C-alpha cells in the first residue's frame, strides 16, 4: 500500500495527540563529548550553550575517559569495526569471551552472556527460561524493558507493591503451586533512586523456592563497597540467580548489556534468547573500551567513592535549601515538584541558568509525582555542584516552593 495522504493524516493525528497531551519528546543536540560540562543546542537551530550536565547516566565519569578512549582505539585497530554476523555464525571474537569472563568475575556469578543492550537482555531472558507452567512476580516499578520481556514470555504474571516485602510474600504463597517462580526487581529504581532490599528478597525467595532476577543497570560499577552492585550493598553476592546490567551507563556508557547468573540459565539464553540469536553482539571497539573500564575499576574504588561523596553533598545541599526529595542514598536524586507543568517550566529555567536537568511526569512517573531527576557523576567537581545548587535555589525561589511540603506545592500548582 502506498503511503497515502489518509495514512499520513492518521499518523499526524497520533503525533498531534502526543503534543496535545504534553508528552511529545524533543531531543536536545549535544555538540561535545559526554561529560560534566557539555554544549547543548536547544531549541534546534539555536547556538550551542555551555551547561552542566545533571541528567546523564555517566555515573563514574568514564564516558569520555582518556584511558577508555585509548583502549577503544586499540580495539578498533586490532579487531576491526564490525562483525557482520551474529554470535553463533562468525560473530564471536576472543574479546567477547574475555568480557563475559570478566563480568562473571566482577559480578560474582557463575557465567555471563553478552547482549546488544540490556533492553535486549531483559527482552530475551524470560522467554528463554520460562513457560506457561511458571510465574513471574515483578515489582510494580520495574523498568520498561523488563515489562516488555515479561510481555514476550508465556509464563503467568503478577506484581507486588513497590519494595513491599509483605505483599511479595503474599504473592509467593499464592503462586506456590507453579512449577517455577521468578521474583523480578530493579536493583536501583531509575526514577526514584531507591534500592530493592535484596537481603530480604533473597531470604523470601529461599523460603518459598523462587528464583530472584535483578536488573542492576543503575548500580553496576558504583553501588556496594567495591561497586559490584546492589547485591554487594546488601551482602548477597552469589545469591542472585539472574542479574542483567548494561555497559551503557557507568561502565563507559557506550552500549551493550548482559545476563549474568546461574550457568544453566546463561547457556539457555545462548541457545534460545532471540535478541542474542538474531542480532549482532557488541562491536569490538566497545568491548575493548569496557574491558579497560573493568581494569580501571579493579585498580581501586576512587571513582565510586567520589560519586558517593558527590551524591551526599548534592542531597544535603538540596535538602537544606528546602526542596522535597525522594529518600535514598544513590546518585539518582529526584527533586519532587508534583505538577507536570511546573516540572517542565522548572527544567527550562534551569537550562537558562546553565544547568541541564530534565523534568519527568506521567506516564513516565505516576500522576501527581512530577519531578526533576538529577543524576550525579564522578566527573562532577564541587564547583559544578555549587553552581547547580545556586541555580536550583534561584529557580525554586521564583516558583515559591522552597521549604514547602508536597501538600503546599500541590495547593499552589495542583497535581
Amino acid at each position, binding site marked *: 500500500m502506498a503511503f497515502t495522504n489518509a495514512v499520513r493524516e492518521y499518523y499526524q493525528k497520533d503525533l498531534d495527540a502526543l503534543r496535545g497531551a504534553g508528552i511529545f519528546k524533543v531531543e536536545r543536540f549535544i555538540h561535545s563529548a559526554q561529560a560534566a560540562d557539555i554544549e547543548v543546542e536547544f531549541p534546534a537551530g539555536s547556538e550551542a550553550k555551555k551547561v552542566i550536565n545533571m541528567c546523564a547516566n555517566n555515573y563514574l565519569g568514564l564516558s569520555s575517559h582518556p584511558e577508555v578512549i585509548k583502549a577503544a582505539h586499540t580495539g578498533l585497530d586490532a579487531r576491526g569495526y564490525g562483525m557482520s554476523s551474529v554470535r553463533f555464525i562468525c560473530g564471536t571474537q576472543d574479546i567477547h569471551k574475555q568480557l563475559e569472563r570478566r563480568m562473571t568475575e566482577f559480578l560474582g556469578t557463575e557465567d555471563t552472556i553478552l547482549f546488544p543492550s540490556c533492553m535486549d537482555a531483559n527482552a530475551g531472558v524470560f522467554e528463554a527460561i520460562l513457560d506457561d507452567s511458571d510465574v513471574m512476580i515483578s515489582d*510494580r516499578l520495574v523498568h520498561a524493558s523488563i*515489562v516488555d520481556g*515479561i510481555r514476550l514470555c508465556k509464563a*503467568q504474571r*503478577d506484581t507486588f507493591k513497590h519494595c513491599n516485602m509483605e505483599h511479595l510474600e503474599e504473592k509467593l504463597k*499464592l503462586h506456590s503451586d507453579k512449577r517455577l517462580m521468578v521474583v523480578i526487581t530493579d536493583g536501583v529504581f531509575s526514577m526514584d533512586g531507591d534500592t530493592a532490599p535484596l537481603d530480604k528478597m533473597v531470604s523470601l525467595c529461599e523460603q518459598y523456592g523462587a528464583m530472584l532476577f535483578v536488573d542492576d543497570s543503575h548500580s553496576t560499577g558504583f553501588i556496594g563497597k567495591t561497586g559490584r552492585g546492589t547485591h554487594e550493598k546488601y551482602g548477597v553476592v552469589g545469591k542472585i540467580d539472574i542479574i542483567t546490567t548494561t555497559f551503557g551507563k557507568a561502565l563507559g556508557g557506550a552500549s551493550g548489556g548482559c545476563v549474568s547468573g546461574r550457568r544453566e540459565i546463561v547457556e539457555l539464553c545462548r541457545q534460545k534468547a532471540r535478541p542474542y540469536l538474531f542480532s549482532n553482539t557488541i562491536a569490538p571497539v566497545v568491548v575493548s573500551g569496557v574491558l579497560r573500564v573493568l581494569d580501571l575499576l579493579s585498580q581501586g574504588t576512587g571513582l565510586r567513592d567520589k560519586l558517593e561523596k558527590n551524591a551526599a553533598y548534592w542531597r544535603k545541599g538540596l535538602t537544606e535549601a528546602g526542596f522535597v526529595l525522594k529518600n535514598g542514598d544513590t546518585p539518582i536524586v529526584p527533586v519532587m515538584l508534583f505538577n507536570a507543568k511546573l516540572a517542565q517550566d522548572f527544567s527550562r529555567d534551569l537550562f537558562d541558568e546553565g544547568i541541564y536537568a530534565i523534568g519527568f511526569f506521567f506516564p513516565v512517573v505516576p*500522576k*501527581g509525582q512530577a519531578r526533576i531527576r538529577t543524576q550525579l557523576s564522578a566527573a562532577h567537581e564541587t564547583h559544578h555542584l555549587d553552581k547547580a545548587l545556586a541555580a536550583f535555589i534561584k529557580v525554586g525561589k521564583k516558583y515559591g516552593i522552597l521549604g514547602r511540603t508536597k501538600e503546599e506545592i500541590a495547593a499552589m500548582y495542583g497535581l
Partner: protein
Amino acid sequence: MEMTEDIRAAVLKYVKAEYLEDDDQEINCDTALISGGIVDSFSMVSLKRFLENKYKIQIPDDKATPEAFDSVNKITALVESFAGGKV
C-alpha cells in the same frame, strides 16, 4: 445472594488493599483504575483471579479487558453479568 452494593464494597476494599500505596489519594467507585494509571495490565491478573475465586465465576480473557476493569462500578457490572445477577 449478594447484592450489588455488597459486591461493590468487596471490590473497592480489594482494590484499595491490593493496588494503593500509603500516600496514594483516595478512590471511589468511578475512579479510573487502568486508564488512570492506578492498576497496570500485569496487576489486573490478580484482580481477575480474586473475582473468579470469590464469586465462583470464569471471566474469559476477551472479556477481561482494560475497559471492563477500569472502575469499581464497571467491575461490579462485569461480575454481575457473569453471575447472572445472582452471586
